[in-house]
């Protein structure tokens, strides 16, 4: 028999957790039981103490999904709490210019603001503030800036640039600078969603069902129930679908499975939801992620930068400093970028050229590369976040399950999308490379190691696929997250974001999710929820 719920929320990252928590608050205020709000999460039901400092393939399989698509590799998370378990907790408001951007791919409709009219930095600021409070965002002092971030600041300074400390969703008193955020903090110091929104939602009584992978949606005619959600049951031991399916009928459905999954779910449901916008599955973006590394000469670090040396790439918080000098004051859309010091994981060692010739010699593998890896501890890694266009498109026929083809119980998936950089996306990346190289190689302090061409785009910040817009001929959802043509069907989270952001996206995703959640609470009674 099909079970019934008031609200089904698919996914428990920022989009899902914030919807669950704010609805639970509203139910509590109305004296109603939030158990009729159900969160379905494909991964394990993690607790704060579920995480280890481990890159072992078994642990990676529990927490990561590494999606290899055509032209882009995407790093995503799985399990209760989504990306917040693995993220590096950089929590930044996006600059005002982001929301005013008009640049886009040449084939992407008429000249216009790419964000819906109702959303600007000013209208989002109250939601940013709410998100910062809930995620307990704090700015580290210079004493709490890691050496890798310090070297980057000193390099920027020596080149005449400013460099700012990055606000973090980390309990700075608890953090022991282990630099293992990327497999989940084992010290309970990171303010993941398990420590705030999800904890509160659960305490209030929201039903959380892990190991349920939402596959498709169809309409229900039993008003006030509107949708029937089909979810595959996932086996805890193997992480694979057991073959079992469950159905849940609901009044409101919130898709919050992230940019790599929301669009595939809707594409799979297209026959049952025939009025969906043509834009479903289009405009997948990378947030302009563009990585590089710098190999430092410890002697020059002493002599030129006046620091006691540098060999501690593996210590500290994984993100602490960034420069806005290539953003601020630039008038032309599509040319700006920020440059941030980052530590994604030791695995990114594969990504960089060793930076030496002669042409024709192997540069990202082989003997020279190996020797460059032997100087790994003298590196810093940089993330440029550039104003690119959203260059990805999901194939019209999605994978049989989930958001991508998963050949086994491991972390690697084959993405069913293509990613082809526009001229603008290439040009702004080249400009970021030139800026990083100039800062890094000034006075011979460092050697610039560019991202190898092999990998296409490497991205930890996928966005879009169900972008919000002012009308269905431009996007999939309205500015309140509701899918055009389908009352009570929402997307919330990274999938609705229409442009790259110039900063790490989670706080903007959270702010947009806060805005969507408050709209949903306001409309709740109309949609048949027990709210006044």
């Amino acid at each position: 028999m099909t079970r019934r719920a008031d609200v089904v929320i698919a996914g428990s990252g920022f989009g899902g957790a914030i919807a669950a928590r704010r609805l639970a608050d509203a139910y509590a205020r109305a004296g109603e039981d939030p158990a009729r709000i159900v969160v379905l999460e494909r991964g394990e039901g993690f607790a704060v103490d579920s995480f280890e400092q481990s890159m072992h393939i078994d642990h990676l399989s529990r927490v990561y999904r590494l999606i290899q698509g055509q032209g882009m590799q995407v790093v995503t998370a799985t399990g209760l709490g989504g990306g917040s378990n693995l993220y590096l907790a950089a929590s930044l408001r996006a600059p005002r210019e982001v929301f005013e951007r008009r640049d886009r791919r040449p084939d992407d409709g008429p000249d216009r603001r790419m964000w819906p009219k109702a959303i600007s930095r000013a209208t989002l600021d109250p939601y940013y503030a709410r998100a910062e409070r809930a995620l307990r965002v704090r700015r580290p002092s210079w004493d709490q800036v890691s050496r890798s971030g310090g070297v980057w600041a000193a390099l920027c300074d020596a080149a005449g640039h400013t460099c700012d400390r990055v606000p973090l969703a980390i309990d700075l008193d608890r953090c022991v600078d282990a630099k293992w955020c990327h497999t989940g903090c084992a010290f309970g110091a990171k303010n993941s969603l398990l420590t705030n929104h999800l904890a509160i939602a659960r305490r209030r009584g929201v039903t959380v069902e892990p190991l349920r992978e939402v596959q498709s949606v169809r309409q229900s005619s039993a008003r006030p129930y509107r949708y029937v959600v089909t979810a595959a049951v996932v086996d805890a031991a193997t992480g694979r679908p057991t073959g079992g399916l469950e159905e849940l009928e609901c009044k409101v459905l919130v898709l919050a499975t992230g940019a790599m999954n929301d669009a595939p779910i809707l594409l799979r449901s297209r026959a049952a939801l025939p009025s969906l916008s043509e834009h479903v599955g289009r405009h997948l973006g990378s947030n302009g992620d563009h990585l590089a590394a710098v190999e430092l000469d410890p002697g020059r670090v002493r002599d030129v930068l006046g620091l006691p040396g540098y060999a501690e790439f593996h210590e500290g918080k994984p993100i602490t400093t960034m420069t806005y000098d290539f953003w601020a004051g630039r008038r032309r859309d599509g040319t700006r970028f920020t440059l941030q010091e980052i530590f994604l994981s030791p695995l990114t060692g594969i990504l960089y050229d060793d930076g030496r010739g002669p042409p024709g010699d192997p540069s990202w593998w082989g003997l020279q590369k190996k020797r460059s890896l032997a100087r790994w501890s003298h590196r810093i890694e940089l993330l440029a976040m550039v104003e690119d266009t959203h260059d990805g498109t999901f194939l019209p026929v999605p994978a049989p399950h989930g958001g991508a083809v998963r050949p086994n119980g491991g972390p690697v998936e084959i993405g069913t999308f293509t990613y082809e950089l526009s001229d603008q996306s290439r040009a702004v990346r080249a400009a970021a490379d030139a800026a990083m190289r100039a800062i890094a190689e000034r006075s011979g302090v460092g050697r610039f190691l560019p991202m190898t061409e092999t990998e296409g785009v490497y991205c930890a910040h996928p966005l879009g696929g169900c972008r919000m817009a002012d009308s269905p001929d431009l996007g999939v959802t309205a500015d309140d997250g509701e899918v055009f043509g389908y009352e009570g069907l929402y997307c919330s989270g990274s999938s609705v974001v229409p442009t790259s952001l110039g900063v790490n996206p989670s706080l903007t995703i959270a702010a947009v999710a806060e805005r969507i959640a408050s709209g949903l609470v306001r409309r709740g009674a109309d949609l048949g929820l027990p709210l006044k």
Partner: protein
Amino acid sequence: MTRREVLRGGLLGAIAAALPAAAAWERTAPAQALALAPADATLQAFFDTVVPGRRVARTVSGAVVHPGAIAGADPDPGAVEADALALAQHPRIGFDALAPASLADLELRAAEQGGPFLALAFDARTRACVQGLDFGNPLRTVWEAAAAVAFTAFCGGAISRTQTRADAPGWAVMGLPGRAPHGYPDASYGRRLARERTRKGYLA
């Protein structure tokens, strides 16, 4: 479609075709090979070309290394010692599905250098791999996947049990201790190192 897209499309097809084999692999679960199959010896030689290392008879976990696999081009441990082959065979990686295609093309390139791959000297192996990883090779992405296995074993410590440099030779080479059960007490220079543009860390 760009050339790149065509190539990646090729990989997608190759992987899709190999999926049933991957599923079968998952069912049978690999037994630790007592002796190395010839294909495995060649794979080790490939991994040693991608991340070269010192000659050893056993990997860090004690698995057999084919005597001719490691060319000894670098004095420090390489991908073979870091158990790249075991990772390739791990059921959660599933590289076995791609191995036949990858090895067939490898031997084709090796023949142009005068050998079976395993019999070639390090420089000739490198030349064969330069060709295999060239954008003009329609099977390039299969080679990339194979190279990724070598790096995942070496840089990622993906089958290290202790998650320390004790059984992650790549981390020992890189200078990465691995687990940091107590964190690092002195991880900052402890002073302001640049002028800041903003008051709160983000732009208006």
